[in-house]
């Protein structure tokens, strides 16, 4: 297949959503740079995508918790990608996070600190160039803290706020910043959970949505993959705290 001369940087290339997203870009003729924690695992995904599509797919080992390496990485990434998508996330275990600081910290750092710092750095280089699209995958769990997963939710809320601020600052600079909230997705992360079919998307559906919004000319800045989430989360956000605290959600 002939490339179209554009490059996607996909951070978190071994996740189900990451893999599906990279594949959709590759099918459209993009070159892809995949990152992940373990080289052999990312290489497996890269080979898969390149066999399926004929696209150029490169890999780079990168741990989202190794923030001290980010500057080197962003400095070295060449060519500078046209679009960067970060799908990194870690649900962790809420009950364990309530007892173990280390686990709680890992969840917060993986969902917020790492992605925010990395996307922030990339945004600086995009801004210097005057073009580019930044896509952060956040979560409906960040829209309001709930008993069942507020450590994870707090991390995502942080990311949502960060992206919102970044978008605000870069508005008019040629750099777009998107926040994608997939809702429930059938992935390894949710494997074994009971998911409501109406609210649950497939990884490919999420990927398609990311591609359509990020590479299309129109589309919102904050994207819920299934539309039904927007009114639902608006309703959940508007429940007064005194009542909300008694609900078991």
């Amino acid at each position, binding site marked *: *297949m002939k490339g179209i001369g554009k490059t996607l940087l996909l951070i978190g290339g071994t996740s189900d959503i990451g893999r599906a997203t990279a594949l959709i870009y590759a099918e459209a003729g993009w070159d892809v740079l995949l990152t992940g924690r373990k080289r*052999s*695992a990312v290489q*497996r*995904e890269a*080979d*898969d995508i*390149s*066999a*399926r*599509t*004929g696209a150029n797919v490169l890999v780079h080992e990168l741990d989202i918790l190794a923030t001290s390496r980010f500057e080197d990485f962003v400095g070295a990434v060449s060519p500078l990608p046209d679009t960067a998508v970060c799908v990194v996330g870690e649900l962790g275990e809420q009950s364990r996070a309530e007892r173990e600081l280390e686990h709680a910290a890992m969840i917060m750092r993986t969902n917020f600190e790492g992605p925010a710092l990395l996307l922030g750095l990339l945004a600086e280089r995009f801004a210097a160039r005057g073009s580019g699209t930044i896509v952060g995958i956040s979560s409906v769990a960040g829209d309001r803290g709930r008993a069942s997963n507020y450590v994870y939710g707090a991390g995502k809320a942080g990311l949502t706020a960060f992206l919102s601020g970044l978008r605000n600052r870069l508005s008019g600079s040629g750099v777009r910043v998107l926040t994608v909230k997939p809702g429930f997705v059938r992935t390894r992360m949710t494997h074994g959970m009971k998911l409501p079919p109406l609210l649950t998307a497939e990884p490919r559906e999420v990927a398609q949505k990311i591609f359509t919004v990020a590479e299309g000319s129109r589309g919102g800045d904050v994207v819920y993959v299934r539309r039904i989430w927007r009114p639902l989360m608006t309703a959940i956000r508007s429940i007064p705290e005194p009542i909300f605290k008694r609900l078991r959600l």
Partner: protein
Amino acid sequence: MEGWGRYPRHESQAIDCKRPEALAGTVAARMGLIGRGNGRSYGDAAIGEHSTLMCRGLSRMRSFDPNDATLTVEGGVMLSDILRAFVPRGYFPPVVPGTKYVTVGGMIASDVHGKNHHRDGGFGDHVSEIKLVVASGETLTCSRGRNADLFFATVGGMGMTGIIAEATFRLRPIESAWIAQKTIVTENLGEALKALQQTEDVTYSVAWIDCLSQGASLGRSLIFAGEHATLDQVGGMPGVDRFAAKNAGMFSLPFDLPQWVLNKTSVTAFNEIYFRAGARKAAKTSLVHWDKYFFPLDGILEWNRLYGRRGFLQHQCVVPAEDALPVLSGMLERFARSGKGSFLAVLKKLGGGSGLLSFPAPGYTLALDLPVTQEVFRLLDEIDELVVKAGGRLYLAKDARQSRHTFEAGYPRLAAFKELRKATGADRHFNSRLAKRLGI
């Protein structure tokens, strides 16, 4: 756990396999294990004696070389994924079975035959290399030149030699996503066999038999002969997209149908309509999308629920060409007389198979579905006698009930297969319910 026919059902522990690196440990540590692809075999072939290794997670393609159209994939890659990725790029798998929801591992283990078997052989004939995880946990590279005996035991070996971790095979270049199809109408079985003989140099051919018609029209059928349509053919049709990805609409049966739905009247009526519709199209060539030509049943997901909760059996045999007419007529008569409704039977011409336990043998293969009832088991035992007498055999990927006697009579290279199992330690590690039932 159950197969596609939903009969029989057995307890077996499902073990997930997501990463190829984990295979060695999982395999070496277990006895009575069998690999499972997408569970499209009908009976008990993909149900492990104690545990079953779910191989769908081995779903990554490894590499594709456009110079010679060679594709290497992990064993759990689905045929539907290969079609989706490669038809738009101008390639088609060398052999496909009647459903695209099968894995490459399952296709090799069953050495599946397609509508082109008479010309191109089974899927196994197009595989150049297999990476097989054997009983010790070691991964062996098997090909016609390396570990050749293990290679020929694995092709058609129903998972009983090890886990197929990776396989390399060639795709065929195509000029379009369309099949140029000719329909031939035949009034009886004799004509059908003759027509299959005459279409032997056509790439794809298959006969759909109305297995309820009796007497003079016993075995009346529609024969669908097809070739991949050339650029010229497609270009001549206005509005036809060369590599159209169009997928036939899909819906699933939301519940099990009660048994009375499939009775003789409804099936007879269906067949009448089906054959009239086919006859109207006869003689002229039409362009049919690959999805509809090869996988007509895939449009209805979970159609196996059509037969209700008790499940169904598929009977597929092959008999040598010499006395195919009397033998197959005898079988069709028996089926028709029993009134056990099968929508249609499928008749194909086969060439030889290369694996030690490969099903295909030169001759004709007849396949039909029957709902599970007490009488059906008796009926099929009688039919098997006819198969054995004719020197034929039954397809293990469809089997749920044949006797050891029928099996042993049909597979002359069984002894060599068992020997190899012993020599590689596979006899203790890899055992399906089918292997136990048939004493392999």
